[in-house]
């Protein structure tokens, strides 16, 4: 019995962990490249979810809704960089000021969603949900889709970053931004690209998650918190770290249920973050910077 429960929680942890890993990578690619504490990343999630919901309500199918969500996400990410962060950076604004701006965007944006769509939750019913069992583990077909999508997206991103010209440039800017300028890389364009990629993944995460869990106006904040906790757990500067951080977080969240009631889930998550910052501020895989 206990073993069955462990297996079930393990499966749940890996499913959630896969999505968290994607969230982490989405925030990580933006943070590693641009060093922007992109608190408004959660808004991308919320907007993507509601865009998909609206499209579905208009009668669009799975593919079209997904497309709208992704396009909307990328556009939002890029616009935030272009209109909000870039002007601040040019004024040599502090990290704190940029963070506060991002927070303003997050707060205002979420309220806008609330104003337009009302407080009630909106489901996205585009996929038939089938319950599957594997030994003592149960999960749904949508869970499988989420896991598959997350890993596929992360692998494609890894290929893009290592094999393509633009991907190499992103890694170059993350590795040494000043040198990048000196060899003639247009860092502004690379920043935009990082925002586009990160927002794309965030939109994708929003879409697959909303298939299962209805959207609410404030759904983005949760995704946001998970996305950057994952990065700081795994280690700033390392996307592999973000993936591990995401998996660890997913597993932790579900394994905690073995010993504590469900309402302590978030407490434990943040307590772990708290401890990691004290004990190992550079995260699991991060490099120590002087």
């Amino acid at each position, binding site marked *: 019995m206990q073993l069955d429960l462990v297996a079930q929680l393990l499966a749940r942890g890996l499913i959630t962990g896969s999505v968290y890993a994607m969230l982490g990578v989405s925030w990580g690619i933006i943070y590693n490249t641009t060093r922007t504490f992109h608190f408004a990343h959660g808004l991308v999630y919320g907007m993507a979810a509601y865009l998909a919901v609206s499209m579905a309500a208009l009668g669009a199918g799975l593919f079209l809704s997904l497309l709208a969500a992704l396009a909307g996400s990328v556009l939002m990410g890029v616009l935030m960089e272009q209109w909000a962060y870039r002007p601040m950076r040019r004024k040599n604004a502090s990290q704190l000021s940029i963070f506060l701006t991002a927070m303003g965007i997050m707060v205002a944006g979420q309220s806008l969603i609330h104003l337009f769509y009302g407080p009630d939750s909106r489901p996205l019913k585009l996929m038939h949900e089938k319950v599957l069992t594997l030994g003592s583990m149960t999960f749904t077909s949508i869970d499988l889709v989420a896991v598959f999508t997350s890993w596929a997206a992360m692998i494609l991103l890894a290929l893009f970053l290592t094999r393509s*010209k633009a991907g*190499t*440039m992103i*890694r*170059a800017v*993350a*590795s*040494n931004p*000043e*040198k*990048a*300028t*000196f*060899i*003639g*890389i*247009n860092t502004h364009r690379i920043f935009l690209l990082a925002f586009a990629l990160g927002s794309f993944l965030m939109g994708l995460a929003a879409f697959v998650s909303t298939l299962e869990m209805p959207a609410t106006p404030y759904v983005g904040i949760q995704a946001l918190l998970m996305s950057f906790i994952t990065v700081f757990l795994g280690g700033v*500067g390392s996307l592999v770290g973000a993936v591990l951080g995401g998996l660890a977080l997913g597993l932790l969240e579900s394994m905690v249920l073995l010993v504590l009631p469900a309402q302590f889930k978030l407490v434990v998550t943040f307590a772990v973050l708290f401890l990691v910052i004290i004990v190992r501020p550079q995260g699991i895989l991060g490099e120590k910077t002087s």
Partner: protein
Amino acid sequence: MAAALLETKNVDVAYQAKQVVFKASLEVQEGEFVSLIGHNGAGKTTLLKTICGFLPLLGGDILYNGRSIARRSTEENVRDGIVFVHQEKSLFPNLTVLENLKIAAYALDLQAELEQRLATVYSLFPILKERGHQLAKTLSGGQQKQVAIGMAILVRPKVLLLDEPTLGLSPNLVHELGRVLREIKEMGTSILLVEQNVGMAINLAERVFVMKTGQIILAASKQEMLARDDLWDLF
């Protein structure tokens, strides 16, 4: 004398209230090797960074091929053949050696000639070919220098601005580097070298400028410099 390839005219540079370069004028002819020496903090690096467009001018002008480039961005200058190499952190530590070299070409859309240009770099620094798939940060200090200079050579600059390339290198590596710099010059690249190793700087150069507390106090040919025995007074 023909018009210089690169010329600074009464350049002033400041970091906020602190002016560090005062009315600095120097010129580099096509294919010439020029060294800029002087005590630390004299403003040499600042002048280089200003030439390549990374720092704004407070006053004066910079001419390249007879046209003012005082307001151009670093990116434009690189595309036009003015390449700067930092004294440290002049590569991408988390990229492999090959990626480091390739990215220099990518940035300027030079993929077409990549192989050929890589060959040039490898002929100067054979070790880089062997270490191609190693992360740059795992290389020794001397090899990292080679990567940095290799990246610059790859784009076939007209003028190479080198900031203390010998810093932290052992004497035989310094010697080796001197040989390579001479080869680069033979390939037709003009070099403006800022160097603490005064002996090397003078030996390599055709002309030498000396900077002191932000001013250029002396311009001399290599022979004139070698004949002087009052080096301490110039610093």
